[in-house]
């Protein structure tokens, strides 16, 4: 086994974990506080990718375009919350699932018409296309380091926001007892809108930061959404800490599985069998992980208190 390769794949997995965390953090906050199952969270991720691509093309600068995209994400999130999602808070989960499913269909189609099936993208500026060589000869693309660093910064920011500020206190209070927070005279409507906006920005940021590597295309949100579901189910719904740990676990296991399962299988079976079983097993790994964790702890690794 080649340890340099192993380390490089570890970084790839770490980066996937960061993206998953950004999406899952918003999803878990929105569910924990508003009790809303938001399938359209992947759509917000897609918004981020397309907004950023558009602004980058307009401003001709990746950094500037991405910075403009963030307030645009906030605005889009708040607009959706005020127009449609707000009316869903009082509804049951089934209604929420269906209505947000309708939103997915609508926006995927809209973006497909606007940008076509190939979608659009962002070209990395020359100063970010190089490689960083870490000690031990491990080469990681510079941009991957940017993703990992910015994701970790946001995780830190989120931690400080939730645990040290007044708004964070309200968020935590809202997660444990919504009615009581409202009864104590807090403007719960505004709080909900802000939390949704925050979730939209987090998911949008994940979408915009990944676009230079992948692409911005219609339907990109759903594969991430489903992985984010796995993440918050493993982590415990409503827990940001759980989302972080589960996202890293999921990202790393998924990436490592895809790279090394066939190699590992070759040790115990012949080439043909390994080539058939390899992709099958690696695509199922994280779901098996989820099943095992649920079998042991049905409400995830870090279940919310009082639930």
């Amino acid at each position, binding site marked *: 086994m080649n340890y340099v390769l192993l380390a490089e794949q570890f970084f790839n997995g770490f980066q996937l974990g960061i993206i998953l965390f950004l999406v899952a953090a918003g999803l878990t906050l929105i*569910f924990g506080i508003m009790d809303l*199952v938001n399938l359209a969270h992947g759509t917000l991720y897609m918004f981020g990718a397309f907004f950023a691509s558009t602004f980058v093309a307009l401003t001709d600068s990746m950094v500037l375009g991405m910075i403009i995209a963030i307030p645009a994400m906030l605005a889009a999130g708040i607009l959706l919350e005020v127009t*449609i999602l707000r*009316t869903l808070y009082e*509804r049951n*989960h*089934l*209604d929420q*699932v*269906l*209505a947000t*499913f*309708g*939103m*997915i*269909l*609508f*926006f*995927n*189609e*809209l973006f*497909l*018409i606007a940008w076509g099936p190939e979608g659009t993208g962002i070209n990395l500026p020359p100063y970010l296309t190089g490689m960083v060589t870490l000690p031990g000869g491990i080469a990681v693309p510079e941009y991957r380091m940017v993703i990992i660093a910015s994701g970790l910064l946001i995780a830190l920011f989120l931690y400080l926001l939730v645990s040290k500020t007044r708004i964070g206190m309200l968020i935590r209070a809202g997660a444990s007892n919504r009615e009581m927070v409202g009864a104590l005279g807090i403007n719960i409507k505004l709080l909900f809108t802000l939390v949704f906006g925050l979730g939209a920005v987090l998911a949008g940021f994940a979408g915009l930061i990944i676009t230079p590597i992948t692409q911005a295309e219609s339907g990109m949100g*759903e594969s991430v959404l*489903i992985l984010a*579901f*796995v993440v*918050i*189910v493993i982590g415990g*719904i409503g827990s940001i800490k759980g989302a972080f740990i589960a996202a890293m676990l999921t990202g790393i296991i998924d990436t490592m599985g895809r790279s090394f399962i066939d190699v590992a299988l070759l040790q115990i079976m012949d080439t043909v069998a390994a080539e*058939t079983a390899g*992709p*099958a097993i690696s*695509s*199922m790994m994280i*779901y*098996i992980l*989820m*099943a095992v964790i*649920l*079998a042991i702890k*049905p*409400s*995830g690794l870090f279940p919310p208190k009082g639930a």
Partner: protein
Amino acid sequence: MNLQKLKTPLGIYNTILVLLCILMPVIAPIIGQEFYTDVFARIMIVTIAAISLNLIMGYGGMISFGHAVFVGIGGYAVGILASHGIESAYIQWPVGILMSGFFALIIGAISLRTRGVYFIMITLAFAQMIYFLSVSIEKYGSDDGLTIDARSDFGVSFFDLNDEMTMYYTTFVLMCGCLYVSYRMINSRFGRVVRAAKSNDERMHTIGYPTFGYKLTAFVIAGMMCGLSGLLSANFEDFISPDMMFWTFSGELIFMVVLGGMSTIMGPLGGAMIFLFLSEVLSNITNSWHLIFGPFLILVVLFARGGVEGFLAKFEKRNG
């Protein structure tokens, strides 16, 4: 069933639904739109899946967002056996139904340990797992799918599924059978326990019912029924692909059940018919029919919660 009931708007509506299914092979050539026979065959196949979802979602409160996976398993059982030259219906059909039941047992046993939103997400995740599994297996076509050379062989000359009319009316009879099974199940002692567990699981548990076992049994029965839908679909289309268990189809199934009227016996038929008919018409008008369909779905959820059956039942009460 008393005849008086048939004269209410709800009764008339349900009668029309069934008559349309019976008569479509006759009506379609008359109005010169022969492909409507195919559309209706599909409607009936999907209805079976919707009935099975209604059993657990409408009556059992288990919102499975991965129900399409059992359609896929039923379909793949037929496809995989056929690709190995096993075309006998007496092997294909039991295997398809039992495999769906087996997967439902495993998925249900894990998922039912959780509740509420966890259940929604876990069923979705498991369905995606099987979806990706089917995509990754190149031997059975990966994402291109698999063409099935011959339909299930019943070994008798007077009953040949390759004959389109036989296929159509077999589907019809099986759909009616599933409607009957769901009717009988819901009104049985077993069904009452499942329904009571939906309204208050803890209470049922306290008075001594092992609700987990009841719910799991319902889940497995629903899985098997859905497998039947899948093997009919594989036979009818002569084709299977991972698409038949993609998560959007699970979402569409939920929508059909809600649109027709959740927790009603005939709701799934009406829901599937309206849904598939509408998507057929809309997709003929424009390729981007999701643009209309998405908002329609949101409007139904926001303003028409009981679905068609609920609306007609309310209408009856007001005038009755």
